[in-house]
């Protein structure tokens, strides 16, 4: 069996599962945010009054927070009151939170071999730590609140093997944008991506999160990387108790496993990659987009708002200024990352360059607040989606890139290869 099949089989209580089969599984962690939580809660309350396993629930107000208007404040209040009523301790208050897919791993809540569901499409991020993690709707979440379970159809798995030597400035975000440019936005529809190969084995955990985060943009059900030494080192940092009680934990696909498809990518000749409007699959090497003029650059989000992204960006921006007629918005993805960026001097660098530094929020990624676009504006963003109207006006445009390309572009005002700074 593949990694995904193994996890689903175990949690369904079966010795084996095959693609196409339906399973009902025990879920280890289920969560929602300020937009998807309230409808889930309202649906749950029609059918039950006691959450099945409150210790397995997390509620994170991250999309329209700090609350952008009265209605948004009402949504967060629903999460807050429900948490109190149901003894859900994992409600993360403003000032002590982060964007959900950066926060939950940091809290040590994402473990290999577990099933994680979130009422948010980028839940697939957590496959980076070897979990089966997938996005679901509010009704799925309500069903989980009621029963502690979820239904799934077992997906086929596409293996993507990355080999060769990673060029300078090429990281996880570039690899996933490149892959999606090859598959298209539905090339992996209903399938699991399993990332393998020597490049993956050496890839830092933040890059793994970026890669798995965007698997949904190829239509995938989930993305997953087998836990290895890098995974365990990260887990030792965020959940030492679990590592101490599972010192010999391994989870690998079966030897001789047959995948439904295998894609081989040699990274040695790759350049930083950028997705042009209006699809995440519309990718180009960065050097082909050098005459795209920008109005806004955003560095942040569950895709690339982590400390290593901020470190790279600060390294490029140090001593430099943001281009005239361009605004740079930097959003560290969690309170801890914000603190670390402050302590390491990155926030000072950003502010001195002329950037706006924000408290953690998803805000502008989905055109919510904290950097919405007007008609005709063009943005470059380290986020994960650039459909029409994604970041604001239907006639605004969004390009997607890594933090390195974003930082370099903020200096020149055009889409820029980091090596030219």
């Amino acid at each position, binding site marked *: 069996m593949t990694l995904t099949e193994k996890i689903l089989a175990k949690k369904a209580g079966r010795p084996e599962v095959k693609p196409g089969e339906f399973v009902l599984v025990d879920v280890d962690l289920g969560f929602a945010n300020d937009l998807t939580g309230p409808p889930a809660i309202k649906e749950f309350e029609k059918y039950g009054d006691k959450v099945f396993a409150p210790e397995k629930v997390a509620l994170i107000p991250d999309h329209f927070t700090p609350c952008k*208007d009265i209605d948004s404040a009402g949504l967060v209040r629903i999460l807050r009151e429900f948490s109190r009523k149901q003894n859900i301790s994992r409600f993360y208050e403003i000032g002590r939170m982060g964007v959900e897919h950066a926060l939950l791993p940091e809290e040590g809540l994402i473990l290999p071999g577990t099933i994680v569901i*979130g009422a948010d499409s980028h839940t697939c991020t957590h496959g980076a730590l070897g979990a089966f993690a997938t996005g679901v*709707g509010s009704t799925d979440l309500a069903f989980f609140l009621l029963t502690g379970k979820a239904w799934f159809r077992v997906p086929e798995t596409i293996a993507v093997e990355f080999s060769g030597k990673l060029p300078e400035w090429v990281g996880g975000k570039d690899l996933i944008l490149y892959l999606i440019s090859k598959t298209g936005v539905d090339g992996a529809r209903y399938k699991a991506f399993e990332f393998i190969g020597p490049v993956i084995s050496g890839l830092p955990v933040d890059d793994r999160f970026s890669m798995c985060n965007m698997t949904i943009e190829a239509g995938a059900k989930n993305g997953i990387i087998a836990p290895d030494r890098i995974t365990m080192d990260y887990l030792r940092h965020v959940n030492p108790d679990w590592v101490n009680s599972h010192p010999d934990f391994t989870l690998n696909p079966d030897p001789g496993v047959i995948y439904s498809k295998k894609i081989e990518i040699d990274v040695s000749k790759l350049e930083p990659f950028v997705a042009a409007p209006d699809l995440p699959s519309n990718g180009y090497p960065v050097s082909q987009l050098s005459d795209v003029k920008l109005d806004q650059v955003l560095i942040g989000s569950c895709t690339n708002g982590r400390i290593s992204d901020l470190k790279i960006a600060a390294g490029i921006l140090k001593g430099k200024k943001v281009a005239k007629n361009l605004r740079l918005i930097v959003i560290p993805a969690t309170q801890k990352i914000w603190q670390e960026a402050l302590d390491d001097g990155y926030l000072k660098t950003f502010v001195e360059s002329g950037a706006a530094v924000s408290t953690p929020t998803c805000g502008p990624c989905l055109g919510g607040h904290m950097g919405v676009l007007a008609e005709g504006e063009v943005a470059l963003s380290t986020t994960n989606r650039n459909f029409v109207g994604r970041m604001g006006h239907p006639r605004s445009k969004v390009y997607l890139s890594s933090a390195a390309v974003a930082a370099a572009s903020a200096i020149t005002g055009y889409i820029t290869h980091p090596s030219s700074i």
Partner: protein
Amino acid sequence: MKLKGKTWKFGDNINTDLIIPARYMTAYEAAELGKHCMEDADPEFSKKIQPGDIIVAGENFGCGSSREHAVLALKGAGISAIIAKSFARIFFRNAINTGLPIIESPEAAATIKEGAEIVIDLTAGQIKNLTENQHFAIKEFPEFLTKIVENGGLLRWATKEKKEPIK
């Protein structure tokens, strides 16, 4: 289960930001969301829809966000079913979970034109295009999913079922 309505055609990759822009997502009731359905594609769309109308679309319908608000917006606008060449996976499960019939039929989706009067017969497994006198067979739907849709959604089905439905 039979559904009859007039068709509205859409292309490929109709994504959730198009179906219901995030700026409206402080609401989550179908009626309110329905007013803004497809607004960035056609500001008048929700006003043009008659209750019972059916969408016919291309590949990867509903791609993008997990927002169930997209299904609610379509229902709220009056859409009773969606026929598409293929569906994005989270939208697919949201439609099933909330009891909105969805049919994957590349042939029907390619052939049926806008403004056609059609009948979807889920029990017989057939789509009839009354305007052009065409018939399309619907590929058999997994039993587990049919049960959820017929019962009006996941939670209604779950609370009716007394024992574990899948062994």
